[in-house]
């Protein structure tokens, strides 16, 4: 495959300009939008898949599964079942994550282009964009973008004069965090209760309505046009460490300039926090941070040199997750922060398997007890037990293991804080009046 030479180093955000209409088709196309699709249509689906495999692209939803490998399980050839489905998982609800929102609002065509390329690659028939219902602007933009595509032969029959037909529908989610789990998403799309499904069968083989289905994150799809356009080796060259490409990283919390930046994979954590987020606000010290959103283990300042690279962060016993860092400063109670997160995940448990359904509310009760100054030392042991209880493999899906990650690491790194809550029978971070107020409740 031949590739464009003028390769950018910020492929995902290069279309985003100050112009508030930069998301529209004409602007997108002016800057080279849909060139990737046009290029893909000149070669065969398997050739595109080879390019994606070659690019080393890993899923940007959090788990980092190699995209090309995932796609290669979809049955191909004349005997393959049809329709095949391609789904964009745009149900971004992870605490601290807002990277997909940027892409959805500002570059809807980039997502659609990626989706069409994906459909072409796997000979799929129908695409769905499963989007968080609260993303009103994004929904509006995607709806308009889809219409623009149908009007310009980018969707529908014989796309751009090729023999390829593809439809895309948008589905706004009714709002459950668990819908971000790909099989729960599929159930939800089928109109069923959003419980995760048993695997096998994997969705690639029997997913939506029992047909081969691919579910990928918004950001993953956004990378596709550029990989096709500029080539796998260009894509690999973007990464500063082992992983390929760029990623949208974010920082939230008490830093000087919280926000989102497209940076090469493998950018060291400290660089993101200090250089891009401007370091801690005056008067606050960094106590710890969640490197990849609300369902990842805490890391400390000592991990600043770790590159934001799936495997490297894994070595530090955390996960890159969504790449959106949440900062815990020295003036905020770690117990309260963990409680807040556990409460969210307990609320969002679908109620299917025991460790998640019963274990998370249990942890929530214990954390509330400790935060209110009513905790006992045995509660810490119980919390540890509950973290082990909800470990990967013990639960039906990844929700509960992710939910206890901040808790299990907080119990290690901030154990003193837990013990202080218990020994002084109140939250050391709250003013006395505040803690009494909580106690009264």
């Amino acid at each position, binding site marked *: 495959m031949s590739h464009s030479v003028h390769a950018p180093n910020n492929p995902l955000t290069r279309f985003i300009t100050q112009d508030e209409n930069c998301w529209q088709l004409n602007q997108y196309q002016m800057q080279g939008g849909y060139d990737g699709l046009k290029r893909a249509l000149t070669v065969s689906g398997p050739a595109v898949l080879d390019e994606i495999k070659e690019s080393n692209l890993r899923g940007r939803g959090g788990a980092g599964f190699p995209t090309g490998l995932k796609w290669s399980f979809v049955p191909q050839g004349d005997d393959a079942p049809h329709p095949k489905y391609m789904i964009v998982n745009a149900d971004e609800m992870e605490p601290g994550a807002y990277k997909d929102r940027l892409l959805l609002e500002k570059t809807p065509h980039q997502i659609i282009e990626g989706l069409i390329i994906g459909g072409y690659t796997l000979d799929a028939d129908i695409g769905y964009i499963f989007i968080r219902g609260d993303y009103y602007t994004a929904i509006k933009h995607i709806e308009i973008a889809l219409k623009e595509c149908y009007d310009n032969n980018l969707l529908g029959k014989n796309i751009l004069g090729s023999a390829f037909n593809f439809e895309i529908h948008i589905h706004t989610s009714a709002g459950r965090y668990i819908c971000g789990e790909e099989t729960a998403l599929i159930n939800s799309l089928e109109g069923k209760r959003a419980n995760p*499904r*048993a695997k*096998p069968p994997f969705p690639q083989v*029997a997913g939506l309505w*029992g047909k081969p289905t691919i579910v990928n994150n918004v950001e993953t799809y956004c990378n596709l046009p550029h990989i096709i356009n500029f080539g796998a080796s260009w894509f690999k060259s973007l990464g500063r460490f082992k992983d390929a490409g760029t990623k949208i990283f974010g920082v939230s919390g008490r830093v000087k300039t919280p926000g989102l930046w497209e940076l090469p994979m493998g950018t060291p954590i400290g660089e993101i926090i200090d250089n891009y987020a401007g370091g801690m606000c005056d008067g606050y010290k960094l106590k710890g941070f969640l490197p990849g959103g609300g369902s990842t283990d805490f890391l400390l300042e000592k991990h600043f040199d770790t590159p934001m690279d799936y495997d490297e962060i894994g070595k530090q016993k955390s996960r890159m997750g969504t790449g959106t860092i949440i900062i815990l400063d020295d003036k905020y109670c770690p117990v309260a922060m963990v409680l807040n997160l556990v409460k969210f995940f307990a609320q969002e448990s679908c*109620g299917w*398997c025991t460790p998640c359904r019963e274990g998370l509310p249990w942890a929530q009760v214990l954390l509330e*007890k400790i935060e209110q100054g009513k905790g006992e030392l045995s509660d810490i042991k119980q919390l540890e037990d509950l973290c082990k209880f909800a470990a990967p493999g*013990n639960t*039906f899906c990844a929700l509960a293991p992710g939910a206890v990650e901040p808790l299990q690491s907080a119990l290690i790194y901030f154990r003193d804080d837990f013990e202080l809550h218990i020994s002084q029978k109140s939250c050391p971070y709250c003013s006395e009046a505040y803690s009494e107020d909580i106690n009264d409740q």
Partner: protein
Amino acid sequence: MTNKVTLYVDNIAYQVSDDINLLQACLNLNMDLPYFCWHPAMGSVGACRQCAVMQYQNEEDTRGRLVMSCMTPVTDGMRISLKNEKAHTFRATNIEAIMTNHPHDCPVCEEGGDCHLQDMTLLSCHIKRRYPGTKRTHNNQYLGPFLNHEMNRCIGCYRCVRFYRDYCGGDDLNVFASKNNIYFGRAEPGTLENEFSGNLAEVCPTGVFTDKPFSQHYIRKWDLQTSPSICTHCSIGCNTYAAERGGKLRKINNRHHPDINGHFLCDRGRFGYEHANIDNKTTHVWLRGDQEHQTNILSYNQTHMKLAQWINEPNAHVIGIGSVRASIENNAALHKLVGAKNFYAGIKQVELSQLQFLAKAYKSSQISLSSLKEIEHSDAVFLIGEDVTQTAPRLALSIRQMTKNEGLKKAAELGIKPWQDEAVRNIRQEDKSPLIIINTHNTRLSDVAKYNINLSPDKQLSLLLEIEQYLKNPHNDYSDATLKITQALLKADRPTIITGTYNFDVTLLSTCLRVSVLLKQHKTHSGFYCATSSINALGLSLFCQPEQDLDNLIFQTEEKPPSSLIIMETDLYRYYSNEKITSWLNKIKNIIVIDHIITDTVKMADLVLPASSLFEQDATWLNAEARMQHSYAVMPMEKMRQTSWQWLCQHNLLEDNQAIVKYIQDIAPQLTPMSQFLQNDKTHFSVARQAMRSSARTAFYANIDVKEYAPKKDNKSQLNFSMEGLPAFRQSTLNNSQHKINTPITGVWSPKWNSHQAINKAGYNSCKIDINLGIKIFDDLKPKHSKLPKLQDPSHSSSLAHTIVCPQHHIYTNDELAGYANSIQQLVPKLAISLNQNMSNKLSVKSGESININSDDYCLSLPCTINDTIADDIILVPINEFIKLGSNIQVSSITDGEHNE
């Protein structure tokens, strides 16, 4: 095909089959591995996480990996540990988590002592509660007369919704909300609509859904006396456990039979037992006095003198009417007493013709009778002219399972095991094995039917005749329906043809049989099933000559009535108008009625002999698939009651069971294997009907007498009405010894497994003595190349199925005895005639207006309801009204006059 493979559990090697999951394998090996969401009939979903075990990759692997045994296939050389501390801790924490919201209400919970959750809690060693929070609470719902609802006890295993929705196809029970607040119930309170809802009481591992009629006379499980019984509320012959205390039948539970009911019963069978408890029952011998309203109670001696006097009086002509709800033994005893010529079946002519035709056809090697299990495993069903959900409900549940086989096939292609329930469902989606229904209207099974064709009976017959022609000579000039149906049937490997006798159409039945024969020529593994009207309908027909039916009896004796008439266990008023029966009975000098309840017929008797109910007698029954099964008494007989054959034995010289069986072998050689059920030998071992801990037995009758009465003796079986004898769970230990006990186990209890759920564990490898599975009487008798009989006299087709009036069945009205149960009475629909809009226009009636039906014997007038799934040109009349109609039927609307003006 299943293979035996080696499984190492805690380093000990076992041989297990490889087609099951690890949990099942461990349970089959009698290991104590706790579980909740798995169910042998519903498969695995991996929700509860309770069955976790440690799996090792090989002998060297010491770390292992925690796996859910229900989700893990057994493979050769697999190494697992149940005892591993990590696995044990996980299971203990898991049950502790499950119990965080479970109330401590065992002492007031009806599940207590019969509770899977109690068993599992102990098995998992959860003793101390650490959870400090408050428990969540829910509102409970009114779910109708069959089930109590106590949602606070819910442990979220999802079995109820999986059973109700996925297994039974119900849609009015669901799971709502999320996290630990999940709620299993209806969108709003109301009666659960599905005909199998009662199983929820057994499917639920704890006390969320409990048996409501049982609540009204509740007794702890360990105080119940239980014995293996057969459900007599339809022709399927499901296996049940009947449980009793103090002379009152308390509860019916499912008894696993692999080929018939499996793990589930219908609600009619589960809740229809109260005919045994009602006040309106016979207890003494009553002789009509000389004066009006005067009844004398006779002693046994007086009774037999009276009987002898009437039977032996000069010029005595004694007629006996046998019954479809009476056992083979009882019918035989009456047959002997009155003689073959004078024995009549207590059913109408058309039904006897149907049954006798069936019995003849079943002898043919061209017909293979399917069991319910075989139906479940078939890959196409052609259901003709019978609303089986209403007439033989358990059969409908099996047919529904059959439709899932297409999904299993697809799953197998993807390497998914059949027990991976949720995975299979996701793969299956809407793909179904073909179910083709020809009926008069849409039924409960229509939602899973590939083709559902509603036609009037004459059109049903023509379609079937066309299908017959196609199978003889396939070409493309047939109607679209014929081509579609035959293609679906011929595409299958094991198609089954299912029909029933409740359409009262002999011609249709014989055509079904011919089609079945033709299909078998194409498909060797095709099967046939015909539901009959009652548990022993087929058995009764074997004792009768053609024309020995009620229609003929009444017609023939109109002029010359018999001197004495013995009516056994049947209510003639169910078959004819009151006037017709009363005027006929009034002509007969001596009417003797043997029954256990006071029916309208009993009220006409001159001599009433109190019979034992099903639950007081050992009896043998022949179900619709010609399978002979034996049921055992659960309680001694009350007061003067005797089993019907015992009342007659002094007069017919059949003095004991053995003599009766011998007589039966003479008059119906097909029933010869019946002798296998005989077992009077108590010399070696006998079995207790009561649990070992049966308590308060000394106090139970303390209001009557301070002394404890000796338990009543049971001379007829190897079972005792007491705690004495072998406990049920030990029976299987005797299986291989010379001291074999032939009776099925009397109850489900074994150490650590107290609840009825233990049957899920036992269901797979419980002691399976062949005789306990029943005997299919035609299986061994079939001479090769024996042909289907020809329908001899076309006049037989003078059926009840008149051109426009067809019967409409209802699960809660079709069966006589179930109608005595209060819970079931509450669900009996209002009597109404149903028809479609075209027909209502034709008759000029609107919904709610009345329709008159006049016939020679019976006239009725009922309001009508419109149902547009009903075929054109017919009206549906409730069965109990329909059956009373005679010939010359005229249908008119009340408003006819007005319209004519």
